[in-house]
């Protein structure tokens, strides 16, 4: 079956554009061109991540301590489980996509529609999970203190178990109010004030003898270094502000670059999934109204399929470099 969408009447002439040495249509070739350039963009991001990580190899956050949550579950930290679920959802939606392409080759309109529908559902679950993952990451876990030099100091008890700021700090009365636009320079305002001031944390820390400071430095055993109480008492003096959660400037989990790359790379990937879902929706409706039955072939499904698998392919790498390695 001829799959070329547009015929130009020059099929017979080798130099007239009728020759297809790769036996792939124009549209499919262009999809591959796009996928290759997009693959290089993603590798640029991931290589930049590797660059920064090699720069700070001794102090990079440990992913297993950062991504430990599962929706609706409030027990012990569970690293990996939820991302593994997300990975499986995306691979599964890739499978339904290939099945749609396969049904398209056999001109089975109903089957294509159903498989496209399942693919869209899978994509939506994935994007939702990623939004939740972001929200959890931004909200933060235990809170930390940042020093003047930009180091993050976290708190642990005698057994090395993480302690949240709220566990040993009581917020004091403070007269400080957030600066709003109406009170001064119109172009400046301030985000929410931190729950605790640095002075509160310091007072709480000095009052609780069993709280120790954990630095960013990774020791021989591959764990973050915990200071003795005496060292911790000295270290707390360096703190200048409290950090709860993560944003592009401050990050309670450790190196701020980690948060920057997390937002940038998973965000860029999430945007790909989101646009993939939209494109799949358009094709899904086209399948339903019979556009491709009229056209005589389902190559369009195959082309969006290529894009969808590419998104899955990128996730496989993001998963490895953000959560595993």
């Amino acid at each position, binding site marked *: *079956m001829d*799959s070329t969408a547009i015929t130009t009447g020059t099929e017979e002439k080798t130099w007239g554009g009728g020759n297809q*040495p*790769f*036996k*792939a*249509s124009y549209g499919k070739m262009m999809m*591959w061109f796009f996928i*290759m350039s997009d*693959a*290089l963009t993603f*590798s*640029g991001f991931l*290589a*930049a991540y*590797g*660059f*920064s*990580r*090699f*720069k*700070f*190899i*001794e*102090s990079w956050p440990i992913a*297993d301590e950062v991504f430990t949550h599962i929706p609706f579950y409030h027990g012990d930290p569970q*690293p*990996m*489980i939820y991302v*593994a679920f997300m*990975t*499986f959802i995306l*691979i*599964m939606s*890739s*499978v339904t996509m*290939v*099945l749609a*392409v*396969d049904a398209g*080759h056999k001109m089975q309109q109903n089957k294509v529609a159903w498989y496209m529908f399942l693919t869209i559902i899978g994509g939506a679950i994935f994007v939702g999970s990623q939004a939740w993952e972001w929200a959890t990451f931004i909200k933060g876990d235990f809170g930390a203190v940042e020093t003047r*030099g*930009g*180091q993050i100091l976290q708190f642990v008890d005698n057994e090395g178990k993480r302690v949240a700021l709220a566990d040993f700090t009581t917020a004091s009365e403070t007269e400080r109010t957030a600066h709003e636009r109406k009170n001064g320079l119109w172009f400046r305002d301030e985000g929410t004030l931190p729950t605790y001031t640095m002075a509160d944390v310091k007072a709480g820390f000095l009052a609780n003898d069993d709280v120790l400071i954990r630095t960013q430095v990774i020791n021989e055993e*591959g764990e973050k270094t915990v200071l003795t109480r005496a060292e911790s008492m000295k270290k707390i003096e360096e703190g200048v502000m409290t950090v709860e959660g993560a944003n592009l400037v401050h990050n309670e989990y450790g*190196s701020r670059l980690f948060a920057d790359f997390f937002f940038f790379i998973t965000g860029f990937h999430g945007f790909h999934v989101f646009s993939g879902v939209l494109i799949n929706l358009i094709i899904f409706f086209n399948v339903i109204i019979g556009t491709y039955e009229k056209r005589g072939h389902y*190559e369009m499904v*195959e082309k969006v*399929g290529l894009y969808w*698998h*590419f998104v*899955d*392919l990128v996730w*496989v*790498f993001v*998963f*490895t470099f953000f*959560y*595993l*390695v």
Partner: protein
Amino acid sequence: MGHEHKLAIFQGTLKFKNNVQKIWGVLIFLTIVTAIEVALGIYKPAFLMDFSPIGMKALNWIFIILTLVKAYYIAWDFMHLRDETKWLRRAIVWTCVFLIVYLITILLVEGDYIRNVWENGHTAWDF
């Protein structure tokens, strides 16, 4: 075009009767690989953590190799590169592999060099 399917994977060791069956077969394989990765990621066997061939922990090498294996089957079977002409496949894969390997090598060597400068120099910790 990709209507003719090559139905054997693992160098012809495993042959499927039709394309749909092959898709499910590949899914099972990818799921097993992911499960191995997750299990290794949770339990982190000590002997793989302590042993570091070529500048990285053995465990991380295993993760990267398994990832490339997964990438291969996604590209070859889901993106049906297996069914395309040989030179279309090569034009896509060789170009990407060359450029990506080149970029990664340069950036990682440079990152490691900067870390060394900081370690031996007298600069502040982080900025």
